[in-house]
C-alpha cells in the first residue's frame, strides 16, 4: 500500500446520463474518475488500491446503496462514501451518516457541494491511509518485544507502578525497571504518555497479565 498516485473517484449510478455528467464535472476539475452502472461491476474492478472515494447512488439495481455500504464495511473495505439520491429522506440520510458516509446529496446537487464532499472524502481517505501506515509501524515495533516485555507494557499502559508490576509478575523491582526501559526503547516511545497512546492504538489490553503464572 502506498500513499502515492493520483486520487481516483469511483462513481456507481445506474443512470448513464448522471454518470457521464459527474465524470465530466470531475474531469473539469482535474479529478480522475471511473464509473460503474452496478455495484457488482465496481467489485470486479482492480482499482481499489489508489487513493479514492465513492460517489454512490442510493437506488441501484439489485441492491440499495445503503446495503452496499454496510456490506463493504463488513468486508473491512474502507472507502469514504458520498451518497447521491433522487429522492432522499431524513431517515435514509441519518442511517447513511451513522454508517460513516461523508455526505448525502440530493439530486440535482450543486457542483461545489459535490466537489467539496469529494475533497473531504479524499482528505479523509488520505488521513485514514496515514493512520493505517503509522499503526503498521507500531505493530512492527510491537512484534520485536519479547513475551515478558509485552506483559510489562500491558501493565505499564494500564497505569501500574514498577513496584506493583514487580509484585504482579513476582520479579524484583529492578528487573521490571530494566524491562520497562527496553520496551520504551523498542517502541521508540519518548514518554510514558506516548507509550500509553501506542498501547491504545495497538489495542494492547490494559492491566492484563499475558501469562497467569500465579495469583
Amino acid at each position, binding site marked *: 500500500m502506498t500513499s502515492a498516485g493520483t486520487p481516483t473517484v469511483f462513481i456507481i449510478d445506474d443512470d448513464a446520463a*448522471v454518470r457521464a*455528467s459527474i465524470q465530466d464535472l470531475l*474531469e473539469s476539475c482535474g479529478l480522475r474518475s471511473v464509473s460503474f452502472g452496478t455495484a457488482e461491476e465496481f467489485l470486479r474492478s482492480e482499482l481499489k488500491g489508489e487513493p479514492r472515494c465513492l460517489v454512490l447512488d442510493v437506488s*441501484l439495481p439489485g441492491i440499495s446503496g445503503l446495503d452496499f455500504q454496510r456490506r463493504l464495511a463488513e468486508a473491512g473495505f474502507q472507502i469514504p462514501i458520498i451518497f447521491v439520491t*433522487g429522492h432522499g429522506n431524513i431517515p435514509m440520510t441519518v442511517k447513511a451518516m451513522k454508517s460513516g458516509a461523508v455526505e448525502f446529496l440530493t439530486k*440535482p446537487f450543486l*457542483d461545489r457541494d459535490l466537489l467539496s464532499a469529494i475533497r473531504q472524502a479524499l482528505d479523509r481517505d488520505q488521513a485514514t491511509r496515514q493512520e493505517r501506515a503509522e499503526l503498521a509501524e507500531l505493530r512492527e515495533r510491537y512484534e520485536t518485544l519479547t513475551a515478558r516485555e509485552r506483559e510489562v507494557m500491558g501493565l505499564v499502559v494500564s497505569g501500574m507502578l514498577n513496584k506493583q508490576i514487580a509484585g504482579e509478575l513476582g520479579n524484583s523491582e529492578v528487573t521490571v525497571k530494566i524491562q520497562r526501559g527496553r520496551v520504551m526503547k523498542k517502541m521508540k516511545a519518548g514518554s510514558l504518555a506516548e507509550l500509553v497512546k501506542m498501547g491504545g492504538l495497538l489495542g494492547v489490553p490494559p492491566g492484563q497479565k499475558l501469562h497467569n503464572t500465579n495469583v
Partner: protein
Amino acid sequence: MNLIGSYNYALVALSVFIAIFASYDALDLAGRVTAAGGWTRAAWLLGGAGAMGTGIWSMHYIGMLAFILPIPVAYHWPTVLLSLFAAILASVVALGVVSRQKMGWFRALAGSVLMGAGIASMHYIGMAAMRLPAVCQFNSFLVILSVVFAVLISFAALWITFHLRDKKTAIGWEKLAGAVGMGAAIPVMHYTGMAAASFTPSGMPTDLSHAVSISTLGTGGIAAVTFVVLGLALLTAWVDRRFATQTLELQEEKLQETEAYLSEAQRLSRTGSFGWRVSTGDILWSEESFRIFQYDRTTKPTVELILQRVHPEDAALVQQTIGRAAQDGQDFDFKHRLLMPDGSVKYVHVVAHALNDLSGSLQFVGAVMDVTEAKQAEEALRRSESYLAEAQKLTHTGSWAWGVAGGNALHLSEEWYRIYGFHPEEGLSAWEKRRQRMHPEDRAKWQGVIERAIDEKSDYEVEHRILLPDGTVKYAHTVGHPVLNASGDVVQFVGTMMDVTERKRAEEERERLRHALADLARVNRVTMMGELTASLAHEVNQPIAAAVTSANSCIRWLEADVPNLEKARAAAMRIVKDGTRAAEIISRIRLLFQKGTQQLELIDVNEVIEEMIVLLRGEATRHSISVRTELAADLRQVMGDRVQLQQVVMNLMTNSIDAMKAVDGMRELAIRSQRGDNEQLLVSVSDTGVGLPPEQVDQIFNAFFTTKPHGTGMGLRICRSIVESHGGRLWAGDNSPRGASFYVSLPTRVETRE
C-alpha cells in the same frame, strides 16, 4: 115426293182427293206459320188460310157438283162467295190454333168447335146457294151429326197438324198419312150433311138472279183453280222451308259453335252455369259445373248431390241461402267452400237470377265460379301482409309512400301510425298531422333533407325526434327512396321510418357508462400515480440532475484558464438530451393524469410497455426488482386508447412489484408480448412474488377485492373493463416456479366503433 139424287162418282173421288191435298197443304202451312213470326206470320196465316179455305170449299163444291139431281141446279154466286169466306175463316182459326207454341185442351176444344162451326157454316151456306126448283128439307138428326163430325174432324185435324207440323221433310209419311186421314174425314162431314138434305120439287119458279149454272167445264175449272192455288201454296211452303232449313242449319251450326265457345270459356274461367227449377227440383248443369262439383256427366244433378259436396262448415249457410231464395224467389249471390272427395277444399262463388216461366213456376238461372285460386292468392296476400305487419311491429319499422305533387300520403302502414302515436283509423289524413309531432328543433333539418332529395332525385336518410302530445320524445330514423316516372320526374317517395328510441337510449346509457369507466379509470390512475410519486420523482430527477451537473461542467470548461470549447459543447449537448428526456417523462405522467373520453388510435403495444417500464423502473429498482422484457418484433398494431392501455400495463406492473416487495430471493418482473391466434396479440406480466391468493383467483377481478393494506380493490376491475371495452380479455394464472402471471389478449383488427 122426294127427288132422288145420284152421285157422279168421278167427281166424288176428285173431291176426296182435293180434301187430302188441302189437308196436306194445311199441315205443311201450319209448320210455316209456326216457324215464322211478326208480319211474316200474319202473311203465312192469311195466305195459308186462303189456300186451305179454297181447298175445303173446292172439295165441297166438287162434292156438290157430284150430286146429281134430276132437276137443273143453279147457284147463287154471292152466297157461294160467302161460303168460301166461311171456309177461309175456319182455316184462319185452325192455323191460328195449331201454329201456337202450346196447345192446351181448352184451346184445342175451342179451336175445333170454331173450325167445325166454320166448316159446317161453309157447307150449309153453300147449300143455301143452290137455286133449284125444289124444296130442300133437312133431317135434323143428320144435320147435327154432320156438325158433330165437323167438330170431331176438326179436333182430329188440329191434333194431327199440331203434332206433325214440325216435320222437316217435304213429304213425310206421317204427314202424308195424316193428310189422308184428314182428307178422308172432311168428305165424311160433307156427305153426311148432303145426306141430311132431301129435295122436294116445287112449282115455284126459281129465282135465278145472280145464279149461275155450273157446267162440266165449270167443274173442271174449279178443280183446276183449286189445284193451282193449293199447288202454289205447297210450292211456296216448300221453298220457304228449304230456306228455313238452311237458315236453321246455319243457325244450328252457329249455335253449336257458340256453345263450344261458351263451354271453353266456362272451362277457362272455371265458371259453370246452371238452371234450377224449384218446383220439380230439376237442375241443369253445364259441363264446367259437373267439373267443378266433380260429378260424372251422366249423373243427374240434385240439390242433395250439391249439399254432399258443400264443406260441412258452410252447409248451414248454403241451405239457408238457397232455401230462402227458393221461398222468396229472390236472386242470390254468395260464396262458400266445397270439400272434395280427395279432401281438397274449393272456394266457389254462386250467383243466380230468379225467373218465372210462362207456366208461373220459379226457376233460377245462374253461374257457379271456382274462385279457389283467387281465394288462395288472396289468402296468401293476406298472410304475407300480416307477416309484414308483424315484422314491422317487431322491428318498430313503419312504411310509407307519399306523392311529391300534393305532398299527400299514398300509403301508411299500421306501425307508422303507432310510432307517431296516431290511430290507423285516422287514415291518410294523419300524414298532415305528423308535422305537428315532429320535434320543433328537427323540423328545419328534416325539411332541408327532403327538399334536397326532391331536387337531386336522390335517396334520403334523416334522423329526427318525434314529440308526442304527452311529452314523450321518440327517436326515428327515416329512409326514403324516389320513384321516377317515364320522363324522369320524381312522382313519389317510398320508404321506412324506424323507431330507434330504444337503441338511442341504450347508446346514451353505454356512453354514460363509458364516461363513468373513464372517470373511474382516471381516479385509479391518479391513485396509482400517487403511490408511485417517489419513483416518478426519481425518474424526473435523474435527467434534471444530469443536466444541472452538465451545465456546471460546461461553465467550468468555459471558465478554465484555457477554455475547452469541445468539452463545453459536449456538456451542452448532454443538457439538451437530458432536458428532452425529462420533458418526455413529464408529459407521459401528465397524460396519465388527464381527464378525457376514449380516443382511439392505432397503437404499438410494445411502445406502451416500454413507456411504462421507463416510469416504473425507479419503483422496481427501489425494491431490488429486475425488469426483463421479451417483446415480439412483428407485433400488429391495436386500435385503442393509449392512456387506458398504458394504465393496464402500469397497473399490472405495480401489482407485480407490490407482490414481490416482501419476498426473499429472486425478484424478477418479466413482460412479454407475442402474436396470438385469430388476429389477437398476447401480453403477459409475470412476477416471482407471493402468487395469487389461493382459492380466490376468481375474485381478484371483482370490485373492492384487495390483498393490499391500502388497496382500493378497483385496479384489476378497471383493467378488465378497459381490456373488454377494447374487445379483449384479461385473466390470471400462476407463474412457474413462483408468483403470478397476468395475461391480456387484444384483437389487432377491431371494427371501428361509432
